């Protein structure tokens, strides 16, 4: 198991390298002079000269990449001209809120998605199944930016149960309860689509597993249905659902951009939107790099969990 974790960590290195290549190449997509684009309104001749020197923009691409990667490895993501502070500092401030939001959503969608999927599969063609299938269809078709607005309208403006936004800092004096209070609506909004996807795939996997011979064996032993479903079918289905949860992490981290905008959540997503409208490319690079790296880490965790649950993967893989 430990050797698997080590191997899996090593495998993440080329992926992270590939990600950094793509993030780096964003600059070369910029039409026209990148230095001008990066500086925007601050494009004085001195600044242009300075940034060309700092980023090595007058050098060939591979050299530029080398310079850039060396900087990244030392924690230097450049300087945000719109905020006039190092990108690393800004990203570090914004990362916590995004991570909390994403992890809360992942927890919600895993829990409700799996429960709904199992319930639907166990009562296939029954009313539970039909109602859940309908809800799942609506869920996966919902634009989270629209849902967020409607939730604010109903629960914050209408009922006054939750704040409309106004998270400024993670522990801005309110403590954990205050955080949860602010977190509830955004986390639910962000979780809806992923819940639908996970529920759908859990249902499909449960149906597949329930047809297997070992489920018949469990029944032939006289086990009650609760044990047949819980101890035998569910565990086997879960093994295939775990990687789906990993993939959903990508959609949750991406979707955070909408939800953070709607709920004014002080995370990386909202930072990115502002940075893009300010054409602050270095800030965009930094944000994208950090979020992509956390996606890779979450997938690493789900892979390890899957292997921990499935003894076949431990021995079959070299």
């Amino acid at each position, binding site marked *: 198991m430990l050797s698997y974790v080590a191997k899996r960590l090593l495998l993440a290195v080329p992926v992270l390298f590939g990600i950094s290549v793509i993030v780096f190449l964003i600059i070369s997509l910029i039409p026209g002079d990148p230095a001008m684009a990066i500086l925007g309104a601050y494009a004085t001749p001195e600044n242009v000269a300075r940034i060309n020197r700092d980023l090595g923009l007058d050098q060939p691409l591979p050299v530029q990449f080398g310079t850039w990667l060396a900087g990244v490895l030392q924690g230097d993501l450049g300087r945000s001209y719109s905020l006039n502070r190092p990108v690393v500092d800004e990203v570090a401030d914004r990362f916590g809120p995004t991570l909390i939001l994403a992890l809360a959503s992942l927890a919600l969608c895993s829990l409700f998605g799996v429960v709904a999927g199992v319930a639907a599969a166990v009562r296939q063609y029954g009313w539970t199944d039909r109602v859940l299938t309908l809800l799942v269809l609506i869920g996966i078709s919902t*634009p989270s930016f629209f849902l967020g*607005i409607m939730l604010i309208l109903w629960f914050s403006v209408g009922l006054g149960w939750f704040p409309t936004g106004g998270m400024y800092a993670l522990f801005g004096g309110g403590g954990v309860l205050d955080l949860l209070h602010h977190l509830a609506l955004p986390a639910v909004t962000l979780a809806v689509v992923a819940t639908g996807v996970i529920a759908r795939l859990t249902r499909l996997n449960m149906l597949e597993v329930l047809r297997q011979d070992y489920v018949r064996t469990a029944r032939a032993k*006289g086990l009650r249905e609760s044990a047949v479903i819980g101890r035998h079918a569910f565990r*086997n289905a879960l*093994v295939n659902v775990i990687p789906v949860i990993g993939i959903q992490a990508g959609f949750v981290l991406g979707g955070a*951009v909408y939800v953070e905008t709607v709920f004014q959540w002080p995370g990386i997503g909202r930072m990115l939107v502002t940075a893009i409208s300010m054409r602050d490319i270095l800030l965009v690079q930094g944000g994208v790099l950090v979020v*992509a790296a956390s996606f890779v880490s979450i997938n690493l965790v789900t892979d390890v969990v899957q292997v921990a649950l499935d003894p076949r993967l431990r021995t*079959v893989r070299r």
Partner: protein
Amino acid sequence: MMERPACPWRRPSIWVRLSRNHLAVLGSTIVAAIVLVALLAPWLPLVDPNLTAPADRLQPPLSPTALLGTDQLGRDVLSRLIWGTRVSLAVGLSATLIAAVAGSGIGLVAAYVGGPVDQALMRGIDMLMAFPYLLLALAIVAALGPSLMNALLAISVVNIPFFARAVRGATLSLVRREFIDAARLAGYSRFRILTSELLPNVMPVIVITMSTTVGWMILETAGLSFLGLGAQPPQADLGSMLGDGRRIVVTAPHVAAVPGVLILVLVIGINLVGDGLRDILDPRLKAGALSRPVARTATMPAQRRPGALPSTGPSEHGSSPPLLAMHGLDTQFEIGREVYRAASGVDLTLGRGDSLGVVGESGSGKSVTALSVLGLVPTPPGRITGGSIRFDGTIDLLDVPLSGLQDLRGGRIAYIFQDPLTTLNPLMPVGEQVAETVQRHQGLSNRGAWAQAVEWLDRVGLRAPAEKARAFPHELSGGQRQRVVIAMALANRPDVLIADEPTTALDVTTQARILDLVNDLRRQSGAALLFITHDLGVIATLCTRVLVMYAGQVVESGPVAAVFATPRHPYTRGLLACVPVLGQPERALDAIPGLPPPVNRLPRGCAFADRCPSVVAACRQAPVPLRPVGPARTARCLRAEDGLHG
């Protein structure tokens, strides 16, 4: 002309099948209506969507001049909605087409060229997939600058991997097929093979992927516009309308709600169509193929079941009833409108200490008969429609409530199934799987059950049982796994042991060992044995009585020695003629010519008539009854006595 595999597009039934799926029809109607209105926008009597009227700002819906109200600049929401839908649809569909063309191209080339090209292309695709979906699109928009065109481009780029992967997979399975070789030999160019031979055949995959991604692409382009990174004013799509409406949502919720609801409805419609298409084009997901069996075979209640017995009462056999008495069992599979009569009118009795062999070719109904005893025939599609199965003289197993049946399952009646690999739960140590049944029926503590499990694993001849108990099924050999399955069946000392071809998955030496083991353990425990097999030799060594089944019916039964010496049914004779005899290599293995009749089209008369060497006209006229043909023997043949001379 080159021979091609059947292309689903040419099958007319695809549209017929789609039209039979009510949800898909609903979805198509929604999408068609929205697309139609959007297309007709220039000819509809709509106000200019960009005409501002400061005096009429924020009119609520259903106001006299504006059906859906006006926005903060007094513009007509309905008009803007329809024109905005045009933009959103155009952008979403264009993005889908671009992603489909680029992604499918990459997938086709990667699979067809293979080698380093494939490696390089697919590693690149993997890199794109390593990004959170929307984030890469944002990065692209950040570099290119916010605009609707750039949003479209960004969304298509992030969707390319879905097409590339799906198409590559589908193409790989085609590249080595004969028709591609034929095209190559015919001197077609690579380009021509790709476009005229491979592309049409992966089209269904492309269509499935398009139908699953087009909804997202409409959502995500709208989302970028919502963030202000897509459509720029005065141009408006559904997303930017929603974005504008957000700022005034408290005072005039309709400005945001109207475009939001339309996106939702449109995407629901698209997803309904997509699900319907996928069900039809993807054979693995065919509706009904994924039905899960329920806890017990559907059984017609005693009041409506022909041949049912009163639930309790004295047995017809007086003082010593047989352990298991099955009468007139009818088990059928109902698939669509077809009824497959897998077991019809099966009679079977098993006394204490008896060993009864049930023989027949695959599809003869022997397994279904065995599984019917404890309601383990999968439902859907299985259903028990007639007969009775009396256990221990008192209860009809077909009418016992589920909890009572579960008490018997694995307790007094136990199964040994065929394939020991699929029969065991791959995620559970084998000892735990044995302990589980011990605990269920004997109510022992965890430790006590585990100790018993290890003891049984020892008794079935597993070496180092304490260690093996902790192993997972995939860590054991086929023979070891079958020993575990046997331990599981015997662990509660059942009165009846039902073994369904327990050795077919094993090699010959292991087979012999396992059979010896079953025989020894059965003798020690005194359990009655119902042994299902297609191997007459096994029956000769293991059983005292034999039951021959054909097309769901019992065609002959009696003591093994007598039946094998003087078979009374021509089918039994045919089966015996097929058995190779050691030391007589010259003996012809007379396979019975022909095939059994399909059990959904059983003839009126004898089911064996078409294959029978001694068939007469009377055989086909009426059902042939099973009748006594000697001491403790029965046969279902009009000419059973003639056979003695033939």
